[in-house]
């Protein structure tokens, strides 16, 4: 499929026009240009779709609104080891192949229900893969690994997608202030504040 067509398709599927639009607000602040990550706008859009299945819009904003895809490729490009980055990159096509294999369609063409179903299955497969390969990765860990003399095995690509989605989302302004709570200057400390089930957690 041509890139232009895919862009149109994504715009249609998501209601987001991202070419030159404000959807990439992150980039206005970012010191890292997408160009320098080795990933494309297409990759970012794809990852936003994947991220939005992992953390969907509910009564609060979801991953796509926080533009997690743009952050994920920066983490993958700059904070991942070479082998992690390769697994992440390969994962972009592997996930689509998985979609075609299971549901006979490109991932982006799936309905919301199908996406959730597909990725829930993939999440389970990823855990099984990690267990079989002796990989332990905390899905909410900081997304940088050190280059060690004996590199640790790389987790399943979906675990990487999930980790980066979670980290990118909850450290974003939208995630931290609209889904979690954040007070820039608390000014005081109360170590015994009432809490009711459903009240949001502090971002930090």
């Amino acid at each position, binding site marked *: 499929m041509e890139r232009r067509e895919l862009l149109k398709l994504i715009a249609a599927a998501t209601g987001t026009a991202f070419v030159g639009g404000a959807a990439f607000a992150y980039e206005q602040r970012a010191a890292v240009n997408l160009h320098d990550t080795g990933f494309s706008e297409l990759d970012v859009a794809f990852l936003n779709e994947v991220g939005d299945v992992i953390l969907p819009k509910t009564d609060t904003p979801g991953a796509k609104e926080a533009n997690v895809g743009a952050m994920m490729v920066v983490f993958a490009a700059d904070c991942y080891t070479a082998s992690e980055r390769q697994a992440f990159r390969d994962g972009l096509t592997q996930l689509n192949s998985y979609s075609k294999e299971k549901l006979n369609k490109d991932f982006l063409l799936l309905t919301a229900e199908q996406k959730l179903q597909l990725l829930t299955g993939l999440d389970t497969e990823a855990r099984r893969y990690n267990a079989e390969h002796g990989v332990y990765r905390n899905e909410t860990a900081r997304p940088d690994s050190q280059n060690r003399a004996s590199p640790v095995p790389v987790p399943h690509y979906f675990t990487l997608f999930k980790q980066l989605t979670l980290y990118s989302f909850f450290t974003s302004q939208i995630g931290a202030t609209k889904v979690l709570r954040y007070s820039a200057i608390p000014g005081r400390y109360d170590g015994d504040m009432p*809490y009711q089930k459903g009240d949001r957690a502090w971002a930090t």
Partner: protein
Amino acid sequence: MANNDYDAIVIGSGISGGWAAKELAEKGLKVLMLERGRNIEHVKDYVNAHKEAWDYPHRDVPTQQMHLDYPVLSRGYQLNESTFGMWANEQESPYVEKQPFTWIRGYHVGGRSLLWGRHSYRWNEEDFLANAKEGVAVDWPIRYEDLAPWYDYVERFAGISGNRDGLDVLPDGQFLPAMELNCVEKDVAARVKKAFKGTRHILNARMANITKAMPEQNRVNCQYRRKCWLGCPFGAYFSTQSSTLPAAMKTGNLTVRPFSIVTRLLYDKDKKRATGVEIIDAENNQTYEYKSKIVFVNASAFNSSWILMNSATDVWEGGLGSASGELGHNVMDHHFQVGASASVEGFEDRYYFGRRPTGFYIPRFRNWGDDKRNYLRGFGYQGGASRSGWRKNIAEFGIGAELKQAMSEPGGWQIGMTGFGEILPVHKNRIYLNHDVKDKWGLPVLEMDVALTENELKMRKDMQQDAMEMLEAAGLKEIRGFDADYKPGTGIHEMGTARMGRDPKTSVLNSHNQVWDAPNVFVTDGACMTSASCVNPSLTYMALTARAASYAVEALKRGDI
């Protein structure tokens, strides 16, 4: 060259250097403060102080390039985007590890006073007596009584928050109101007190974070942002910039010269006095000399000894102070990263507001009073309780709305503590010059040869076991002990290498921190320490520095130095 003469030169601008400059300048001396790194201006240069996680290009996460460029910092938690640039450049300023030693350095005005843990505790009477009683190393030439008034003095000015707890093991001081314990910490503290019949205490940590404004220093009380390491625009924690430097500048007697790497003290072997220092300008690589009547060496423990090792080498091959045979020896730190954590049941209807930059402190209880162990000395704990946030383990939630909801709410309460143990001064734990490796300016570098000994290894068993025991006694669940294999240096409490003592044959400094062979040279940072105690050391450096500065000015007036 007329402007190269001063009454006093202070080498270094960190916690102890800032105190030396303030005290000497306030007493009327014309002071030159030399700092090897760049200047950092209070508030104006704290460029990240108002940034949030999302303002950093990598959300404060280090890149692979940062890991590559900073292999030492990379070992710990210090490598991140928000404090990047505040640590010594490891390519320009290498060192050699005969045995693993993690050396965390801050080369800029303010030094590590901008990047410290801020826990501030007095030593107790026994800390000064232990070496003599146990026949370890050499006796301290001073006692608690010698330092007590100076603790009072520096606490009042630095601003230390804490409670007066009335314990001999952790002497009380001049405190601002303590930072509060949260509801879970208070509950656990009460249970531990009861279970151990008042022999173990979970106390409010004593912090160099002010809980009341200090308008005379233009300092605002802590705003509970927990961004201390970004430089506090409120001046709410003690640093050179927030506290001692403005006071010193106000006298009109202080000149600060950044980018000044001191290469050696100039030494007059006939008069047995230092006459000044030689520096390399870090920017233009030119050599300059500055003259003074006295020199305060506050370059941080290891670099202070490095300067001594490079000084008066025509008289002593090993440098000034090496006649003792102890220069560079008796390296100490605090060994830590061992303790326990647990889950707390209940308190689901309680939470907290504000990001408190501290937690609780448990003072030493081992080898204290009637307690006797199969090792010497003891340890304290730092810890805290909190509810887990979005980074809790969410393995059971898969993906989707349910996962998002689970991550959006606080999880259960957790409590944890890590011990900080005393390391004995051991002669064979040492640093020395390595002339084969040079830094960017062609200067020889330090080589570290330091390892824990049996005493610390035995102590660590208790540090883990006792933490677990306290959590268990408090009725907590899922108790997890840990021992994360401490590596020397990671406590960032380097001490020793130019110890104080009573005899020039076995110590580098006398009871007023004067180099035996050059009484107008004072070393008052971590290098001077004869033993390590188990409490955080900076407050003691402040007190020792103020005491030595007062003595130096008196001695100067008397014409003794």
